[in-house]
């Protein structure tokens, strides 16, 4: 059974807030809270090894902080920042596997984020790969002319990419008008908050709060 994306998002935020509220160095408490995503990781249908590896992406950043803490002889803090950033990103990754980016964005809209912002996000998602492909073919074209390392080529690629983006947005707007667009995008996607979501949210928050404050 799939949770409502709003429920997933709220649980993620509650968890991250609970993590953020821990004092640096309180490693036992942090470890207790780590249990949640780890349990979730093994209960949900997600590619475990992949997520565990992907979460390591954050480590270079937290290594820097951990290293400074280590240099000052504060091992507990070094471990703390490494662990907390790793477990946070793991929680985010699990959530993005359980709900799509699009669903999470729409959950944000339903929870009060400005619709204008979410619509812009949707356009970005739609056209990211299109423009990347365009940029890539420009890069190849520059390479073929043997000029990959030229500032001029780089600048004119950027300029070209930008101007084409402007043209594209006019084309998109025309296509929208042609199908009766009148200034506001219709929003219609099913999102059903069921009893199960209320239960999941209540249990989740209770669980997080217990681990964080009752222990």
């Amino acid at each position, binding site marked *: 059974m799939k949770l409502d994306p709003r429920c997933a998002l709220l649980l993620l935020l509650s968890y991250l807030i609970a993590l953020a509220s821990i004092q640096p160095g309180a490693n036992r408490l942090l470890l207790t809270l780590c249990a949640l995503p780890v349990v979730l990781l093994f209960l949900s249908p997600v590619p475990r090894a992949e997520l565990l590896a992907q979460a390591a992406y954050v480590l270079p950043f937290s290594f820097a902080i951990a290293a400074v803490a280590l240099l000052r002889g504060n091992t507990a803090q070094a471990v703390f920042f490494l662990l907390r950033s790793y477990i946070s990103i793991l929680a985010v990754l699990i959530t993005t596997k359980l709900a799509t980016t699009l669903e999470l964005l729409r959950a944000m809209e339903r929870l009060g984020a400005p619709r204008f912002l979410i619509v812009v996000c949707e356009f970005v*998602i739609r056209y990211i790969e299109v423009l990347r492909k365009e940029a890539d073919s420009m890069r190849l074209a520059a390479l073929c002319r043997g000029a990959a390392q030229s500032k001029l080529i780089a600048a004119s690629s950027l300029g070209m990419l930008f101007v084409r983006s402007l043209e594209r947005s006019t084309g998109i707007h025309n296509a929208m008008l042609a199908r009766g667009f009148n200034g506001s995008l*219709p929003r*219609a996607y099913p999102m059903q908050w069921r009893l199960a979501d209320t239960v999941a949210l209540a249990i989740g928050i209770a669980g997080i709060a217990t681990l964080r404050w009752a222990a």
Partner: protein
Amino acid sequence: MIRVRDLRYRYADSGPVLNGIDFDLKAGESTALLGSNGSGKTTFALHLNGILQGEGEVEVATIRVTTATLEEVRRKVGFVFQSSENQLFLPTVLEDVMFGLLNQGVPAEQARSRAMEMLERLHLASYANRNPFHLSAGEKRRAAIAGVLVMSPEVLILDEPTTFLDPPGIRELAAMLNQLPMAKLIITHDSRFAIDTTTRASFFDKGRILADGPTRDIIQRFDWF
């Protein structure tokens, strides 16, 4: 169905692009627009649903195209743009096909089922929740057409619909278009496709219609193979 008299247009930063176009399209008829790149075919077509408004008269189904009638006109005219990538602007195929219906005020659930039906008809049902980027050129074109057909237009305008399609894709598209009963205006550089899908053709040159007549005759006359 479409009646255009002495249409003239220039873009803000260009010379005259349309220099007095007279054009007629009867209900149920299919016409091809031929002519070289930059001759003004797309610019002309954009006047038929009021995206551009120049000097002269444009009538669609006896409605004069003006700012006041835009909504009505756009319900009657379905426009399939040259770039499917631009036309399919929503993050999933299904939502994109629903877009026109929702703009017309069709309730969401009904719009969803009509859009699904249309996708099934065009063999795209399995792509409903995909990002359009991941479709092949032919599938993108069909999805773009689905989003227009689902609005049941009375005239269908297609701007270079064979762009990026392979020969089987082009044949498939021609067969599909031939099954549609409404009037069609097809801009194309593919003379074979024009012959397969239209009975008449108009030849554009430098913002004028040089000639019109049966598609084969026009193609022969201008050596347009």
